């Protein structure tokens, strides 16, 4: 969260962003917006007709003289309404909907292209979800707001110009007073932005306090201090209320001045008009006409002030859409190459995540021969998972290169690279869809029989057929009824169905209970046959049979070799092994706790 005022985009930049966001419909959008301006101008002319019209009726009525002006006014009004009708077709004929639809689709595609490292953390996910979710809410009111702006700004100017012809003094006053609104509006925006930022910070604080409270409730209740924390929470609530109140007061001040200017403008016009009438230099009919016209202005101006917020929200959304669209995908080397073997090499890899200083990997070298099993071990945070992510090209290393079958990852097309690698994570993500669809997503063209074969190989078939609707059972409806091990086996079935030559196992059994573990282990045994396997495991006995063990510490390769070699080395690995062996001997008894 930055505490700075968000920068204000210039109107021209906003216009450009808007046209870019309208894509293929930008011509129609531009025409609609211009039409709205024209409609507002014509409406100004229609209102201006009141001046000559009133002169024919006040003080003495002359129907014959009035009729032409009445007709002209009516024609102008109808023209204005007709133009506006056409302009609003952008909304009503479905252009807006089609447009937000296309924008969402394109942004969705963009999410598939941008480097995955930018999507890894949860906050980024929330930001993007909000952005994609709110596209329509942010942009649907575009024409409504534009029409309002046109009425608030253009109509008064046209009336004022027309008034110059009838009485230059009154025209000049109108011209001076009403366009004042624009600089006033620009002036109050920064303070609006500041207030918003303070409010956003306070909201953020309250939100995380609430989250902490609800997450921590079991602990708080156990520690008997719900009251204490609740007090802290109440402080946070009243802090938020205070900020809101201040914001309301501060926000009220510019609004107050704006509204006062508007009300005063009406009164000023009336006062001066009366002054000129009393002096005998102004036709009273003109004063009456101007009065009717000027009163018409106050409503659009008032709504304009209220809707100024909506304009800010729209501008912010446009800016974010632009920012997301501008993220470049990872560069692709041409010509694209196909690896002919699957041997993996890490050559002098150094890496830090985007927007961070910390080097996660430093000058790492490793070679993974075809059909070999490589284990990555090391303390949490040492960089094991990052190595696997680089192999999947979530990001490119700043230095060095990774090759598969001798081909630089950057020269392999993303789809092709994807086909080469299967991953089994500790957390399994299942979609709210049938079990069948959840497995088949690994290879959409797989037949039902192939899916079932994969499920059998992953030891899932039995429990799936026991579910009320078998493979058609919806995951959402039974969500909680699948155990961790069952979910994990479904994800292994996916990987088996995918049949990729390279398999990455990231702690696949860490969160499982013993019974599930045996089944998952059996499933993994099927999966890893005849492939290059990279496994991250905490339980060292699991990987004692690996062809090579890479011990990673603080982003560097501390040791490598086979189990026996590493034990003989008496280094880091040997110490970890001994620590783990000693725990195996640990068991509890009453009284003294541990033997």
């Amino acid at each position, binding site marked *: 969260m930055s505490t700075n005022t968000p920068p204000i985009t210039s109107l021209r930049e906003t216009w450009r962003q808007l046209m870019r966001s309208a894509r293929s419909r930008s011509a129609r959008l531009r025409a609609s917006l211009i039409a709205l301006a024209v409609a507002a101008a014509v409406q100004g002319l229609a209102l201006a007709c009141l001046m000559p019209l009133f002169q024919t009726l006040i003080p003495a009525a002359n129907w014959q003289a009035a009729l032409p002006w009445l007709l002209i006014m009516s024609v102008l009004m109808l023209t204005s*309404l007709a133009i506006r009708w056409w302009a609003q077709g952008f909304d009503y004929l479905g252009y807006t909907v089609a447009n937000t639809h296309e924008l969402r689709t394109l942004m969705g595609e963009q999410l598939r292209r941008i480097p995955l490292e930018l999507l890894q953390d949860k906050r980024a996910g929330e930001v993007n979800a909000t952005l994609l979710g709110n596209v329509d809410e942010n942009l649907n009111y575009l024409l409504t707001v534009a029409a309002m702006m046109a009425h608030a700004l253009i109509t008064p100017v046209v009336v004022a110009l027309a008034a110059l012809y009838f009485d230059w003094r009154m025209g000049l006053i109108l011209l001076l007073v009403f366009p004042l609104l624009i600089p006033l509006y620009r002036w109050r925006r920064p303070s609006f932005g500041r207030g918003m930022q303070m409010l956003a910070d306070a909201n953020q604080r309250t939100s995380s306090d609430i989250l902490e409270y609800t997450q921590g409730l079991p602990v708080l209740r156990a520690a008997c201090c719900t009251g204490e924390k609740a007090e802290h929470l109440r402080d946070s609530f009243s802090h938020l209320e205070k900020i809101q109140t201040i914001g309301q007061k501060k926000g009220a001040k510019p609004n107050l001045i704006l509204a006062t200017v508007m009300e005063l403008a009406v*009164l000023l016009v009336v006062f001066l008009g009366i002054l000129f009438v009393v002096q005998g230099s102004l036709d009273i009919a003109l004063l009456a006409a101007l009065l009717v016209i000027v009163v018409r202005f106050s409503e659009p101006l008032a709504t304009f002030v209220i809707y100024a917020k909506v304009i800010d929200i729209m501008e912010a959304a446009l800016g974010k859409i632009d920012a997301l669209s501008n993220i470049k995908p990872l560069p692709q080397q041409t010509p694209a190459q196909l690896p002919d073997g699957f041997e993996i090499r890490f050559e002098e890899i150094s890496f830090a995540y985007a927007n961070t200083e910390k080097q996660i990997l430093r000058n790492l070298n490793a070679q993974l021969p075809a059909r070999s099993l490589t284990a990555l071990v090391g303390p949490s945070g040492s960089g094991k998972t990052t190595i696997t992510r680089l192999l999947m090209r979530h990001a490119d290393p700043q230095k060095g290169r990774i090759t598969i079958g001798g081909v630089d990852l950057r020269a392999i097309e993303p789809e092709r690279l994807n086909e080469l690698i299967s991953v089994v994570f500790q957390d399994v993500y299942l979609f709210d869809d049938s079990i069948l669809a959840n497995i088949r997503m690994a290879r959409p063209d797989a037949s039902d029989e192939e899916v079932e074969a994969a499920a059998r190989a992953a030891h899932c078939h039995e429990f799936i057929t026991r579910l009320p609707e078998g493979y058609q059972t919806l995951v959402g409806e039974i969500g909680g009824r699948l155990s961790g091990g069952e979910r994990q086996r479904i994800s292994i079935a996916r990987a088996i169905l995918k049949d990729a030559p390279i398999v990455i196992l990231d702690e696949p059994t860490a969160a499982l209970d*013993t019974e599930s573990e045996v089944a998952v282990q059996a499933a993994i045994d099927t999966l890893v046959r005849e492939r290059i396997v990279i496994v991250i495991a905490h339980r060292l006995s699991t990987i004692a049979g690996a062809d090579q063990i890479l011990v990673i510490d603080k982003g560097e390769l501390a040791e490598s070799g086979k189990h026996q070699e590493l034990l003989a080395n008496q280094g880091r690995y040997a110490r970890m092994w001994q620590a783990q062996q000693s725990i195996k001997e640990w068991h509890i008894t009453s009284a003294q706790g541990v033997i």
Partner: protein
Amino acid sequence: MSGSLSRSADLPKVWSIMRPVWGQIRFAMGLAGIASAFTLGALTMLAWAVHRLLATPDQWPWLPLLLAVVLTVLAYVLRLTAFNQSHYAAFRLETRLRTQLSEHLARLPLGYVQQTGAGALTKVLMEDVKALHVFVADSTPLYARAYVSPILTFALLWWLDWHLALVATAVLALGVAVVSLAMRNSGEMMRQYNEAGENVSRAVVEYVQAMPVVRTFDTGTVTFGRYQRALEAYRDIVTRWYRMAGVSSRLSQLILSPLPTLAALIWVGAWLISQENMDAGVWLAVLLVGTGMAESLLPLMSLKHLVAKTQMSIHRIHEVMAEPELPVPDETAAKTPQDANVRFEKVNFCYTPSGPLVLRDVSFDVPAGTVTALVGPSGAGKTTVARLIPRFWDVTDGSIRIGDVDVREMLPETLMQQVAFVFQDTFLFADSLANNIRLGLPEATLDEVIAAAKAAQAHDFIMALPQGYDTQAGERGIFLSGGQRQRITIARAILQNRPILVLDEATAFADPENEAALVAALANLMQGKTVLMVAHRLSTIRDADQILVFDQGQLAERGKHDALVAQKGVYARLWHNYEQAQDWVLAGEQA
């Protein structure tokens, strides 16, 4: 979410959410109503001023002008005050509701909190409460205006000139007729629209959140398809809605815009004046106020839309508030346990009244100072047993007794003073590490905290942090590994020093080096306590005084390790699996 929520029959319920600040809201609405009356008055005064000028063009119409100024200023001040009042009331309401909700949460069964999820509850407390703002703060004064203004305008017009009053009303009636044409079937469309909109939000969240996972699978082709289908359904519904109601709703907007009313009043007025049936001053007054009826109707329509949106939020707030609290005994009737014995007596338990029994007829006794292990396949109910002791839920039948007192007959504080918990999901607060350890015991000295941390094998890594015990933990604090966090919570339990200890999978997530420290910490914690532990690592519990084996919600076997293995029952199978899992070695092709 069921679609029936958006029915307008729920409207009174919607207003009832404001009850705590109802007085202030009514005040604000009253002010807003008076303000719109004054605005009309000011306009009439201006017309009167011109009327006077017409009669005597060389005299200043001081009185009407002065009144116009006074009424304008008053109307403005009242309107501003009304908006300020309704906003303050809305802010106060937010605080009130959040306080009520958080206090309510503290008294609900913890199981409810865990099942609903902290994220979902936070959303209710934060977003849903915030969503009320538009309704309570922004729309209430507008409501007042939308109802007061047309009525007063009509009365005023009628008084000025009944012909023109009828003309204005006719235009309005035409507009309303077209509106109702546009709103025909809108309930059903609205429902479909909301549903499609919710599907889109869900698809967006799924698509974005699963992105890191699915991109490793199929570069997201399948999920993208799901996302796109939701988008298309939404687009189709909105397009259909526009096609169905588009023309009439556009037409109603045009008719209700001020121009048609103005044109009609000008034509008829001009005719009446030329027939010398009307005074120019009256005509002017009509032209100034006459458009007010139509103008105040349009906001009313958009308000309805806003309120409908708020309904979902209000419903969710009510839902949480309606959740029954955990019953607590009277202070006078509350009992205190005599010793640290834990006993389950014929316990049946199900999560929902109609749901299946999760525990069936479970009875066992844990004598003070002994160690009991709870084992069983996943879903057998062992974690539920552990969580019933601190009353995450209450038992459906039977009772749980500590020191021969039913846990429901103790004050929550008394119960908590007996039992300490270490769960697998560790939680640290955004506070210093020292305060995280002394949580609930604010009077504990730093020396006591350090002693507990030492016993929990946490002292060394804490001291290695730049700010030692003052290091901030939690979301905005330092990154600690799972094992390190676990040791902090063990230090907390050691400091609490309660006679009974419930451990749930305490060592599940540790890496090898952390694990050794964790085991030592647990050993220190368990010294001399009555211990119930849910265990997966069966080797650790070989010497427990009692092993309770659960299977499908029932206590299947009990006894000591050797006897249970010899029985060749559930435990023997678990033990066999366990040994097999321990011996699993991933075989390299070249090894």
